[in-house]
């Protein structure tokens, strides 16, 4: 026992004197978790609270195009910056830059006329179908394809751009529907439709309530902290590789490992000690990063991290994830020949595992062809376990299916490390 104690003391002293390793293990992930959560929370705000600056070139300026402008404003996601009448597509880029608009819409000169024409045809055809109008139907195939043009800043990602496009489409649809209803009303009643009916049409939309699915029945809406803090904590634990991997290589290169082999003590004690030491570091990372999420985030305007109710489950998942991270670092350290190899391969492989494991990109958004890599990334199983507790409000028993593969990968890594040590003649 004294040997293990002496070894633990030695390993703790070595870690506390490795300032670069410590900063990589603590400062870097803390910065990452703050920055990424702030960015995601900011994006959420941009989408949900901040309005998207929209520049409108209205060359039509007739009633329907003005109605469209108003509807776009009423949707609530756009901030109409400026309505310009003289459209010149050569200056649109400069104008967008000048006004910091991310999106611009050009409403052409004959927009209202075209909509009216389309609505009149539609009304006539519909009434004819109902047998209310005996006039001959107009078979002309009038279309409004692409009469509106959307300009967008290239910085807008495709998914976000499509969201904006859908919003604009729904505004156009509202305008069209209003015109159609009004037209049908006028045709039937031979009088103008009262504004109250039109307003009712606009306000009485079907509501959709959003409810996050959770195992514990709570309806707490997950926020950027619930998503990011567990994810980047896992990343931080795996980044232990930069310290542990190079520490093992250093021992091999300096000959300390060889000397240890000549001592009347089992080499596995040193291996066990290293794992205990770094597992302790991993648990410190968990405590520090979670504490930042709980106590520091609210003070900088970020959503507070809510700790799951199953604390025992959380401790088990954290310990197992930490052990898996330590095992991975051990394997890289045992097989690497130089510190550069351990650091370079270690860091790159951790980023790749994070990408495959759903830390950088959500796993549901990954192509089918990546599903194999997803399943072999320990970070995936670790993240799924944490999300089971943090997002779904599950208990340990609910995430056991994610724990088993994580444990399996960890044991496999331990076996690989032992094979490597045997190959290097160290055990």
């Amino acid at each position, binding site marked *: 026992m004294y040997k293990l104690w*002496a070894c633990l003391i030695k390993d703790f002293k070595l870690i506390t*004197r490795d300032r670069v390793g410590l900063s990589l293990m603590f400062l870097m992930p803390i910065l990452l978790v703050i920055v990424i959560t702030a960015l995601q929370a900011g994006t959420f705000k941009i989408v949900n609270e901040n309005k998207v600056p929209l520049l409108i070139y209205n060359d039509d300026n007739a009633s329907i195009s003005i109605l469209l402008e108003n509807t776009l404003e009423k949707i609530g996601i756009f901030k109409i910056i400026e309505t310009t009448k003289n459209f010149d597509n050569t200056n649109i880029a400069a104008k967008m830059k000048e006004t910091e608009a991310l999106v611009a819409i050009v409403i052409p000169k004959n927009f209202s006329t075209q909509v009216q024409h389309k609505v009149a045809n539609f009304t006539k055809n519909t009434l004819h179908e109902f047998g209310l109008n005996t006039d001959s139907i107009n078979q002309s195939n009038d279309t409004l394809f692409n009469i509106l043009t959307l300009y967008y800043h290239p910085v807008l990602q495709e998914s976000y751009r499509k969201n904006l496009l859908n919003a604009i489409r729904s505004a156009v649809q509202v305008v069209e529907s209003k015109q159609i209803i009004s037209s049908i009303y006028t045709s039937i009643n031979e009088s103008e439709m009262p504004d109250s009916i039109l307003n009712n049409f606009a306000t009485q939309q079907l509501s959709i309530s959003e409810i996050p699915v959770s195992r514990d029945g709570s309806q707490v809406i997950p926020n950027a902290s619930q998503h990011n803090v567990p994810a980047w904590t896992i990343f931080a634990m795996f980044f232990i590789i930069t310290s542990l991997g190079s520490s093992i290589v250093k021992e091999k290169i300096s000959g300390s490992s060889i*000397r*240890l082999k000549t001592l009347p003590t089992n080499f596995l004690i040193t291996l066990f000690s290293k794992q205990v030491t770094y597992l302790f570091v991993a648990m410190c990372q968990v405590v520090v990063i979670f504490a930042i999420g709980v106590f520091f985030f609210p003070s900088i305007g970020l959503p507070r991290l809510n700790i799951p109710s199953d604390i025992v489950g959380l401790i088990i998942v954290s310990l197992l994830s930490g052990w898996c991270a330590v095992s991975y670092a051990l394997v890289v350290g045992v097989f690497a020949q130089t510190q550069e190899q351990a650091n370079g391969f270690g860091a790159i492989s951790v980023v790749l595992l994070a990408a495959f494991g759903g830390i950088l990109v959500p796993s549901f958004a990954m192509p089918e062809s990546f599903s194999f890599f997803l399943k072999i990334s320990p970070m995936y199983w670790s993240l799924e376990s944490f999300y089971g507790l943090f997002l779904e409000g599950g208990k340990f028993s609910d995430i056991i299916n994610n724990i088993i593969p994580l444990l399996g990968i960890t044991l496999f890594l331990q076996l690989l490390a032992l094979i490597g040590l045997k190959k290097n003649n160290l055990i």
Partner: protein
Amino acid sequence: MSNIAVNIEKLNFKYQGQVSDTLSDIHLKIEEGASIGLFGPNGAGKTTLLHLMTGILKNNQGNITLFGKKVGTNYKETNSLFGLVPQDFSFYQELSPIENLQFFGAFYGLSKQQIYNRTNELLEVLGLTEVRNKSVIKFSGGMKRKVNLAIGIIHQPKIIFLDEPTVGVDIQSRYSIIKYLKKLNNEGATLVYTSHQLNEAEEICDKIALINDGKIIAYEKISQLLSQHQETSLENLFLKLAKNSLVHV
């Protein structure tokens, strides 16, 4: 009759993937309390032989025993018998001498009190008391060699294997290391020593084993070897025996 500290019989060894033997047909008997020098050019097999004697490498053929105990069978028993002072600084340079000695002392199976006593004694004898709490990384080459030596002998082993313990050190450090090794030898420790420094052999060694091309080409007392071959210096003798092989001395 004195005890045999190291007994090597019919030893052959080659590294994995190599065609020819690194060491072939090695027979060597080292008596308890003796001080033996293994000398030879670079790549002759000195360090390999030392690693085989300490169980770091496993021999392909032959038998090695330390005080009658076969190397590579019961590591707890055999590894307590010897101390290794490797050529590299095989310790933790981020730690201080005292921290290194505490850790390695524990791994040699010493008690807390024994470690305390031996650490103080070794730091005093080797002139490291003043820097006992400083990180070794800041030390000169000579001081690091002393720490390397102290770790290898903290458990007062019966045999000390020294792989070029004075390489790259200044005259003063070299003198103090040699002086201390002689003291240990006088107190009964068996020394097995490799070096390129043939002049050191005359200071420390009773006998020398000259190794060339993986074979022991001579193993005698220095005076006997010189008179047998009518040479006045070990350098000339070695060049003669190694048939003008490239010798780095």
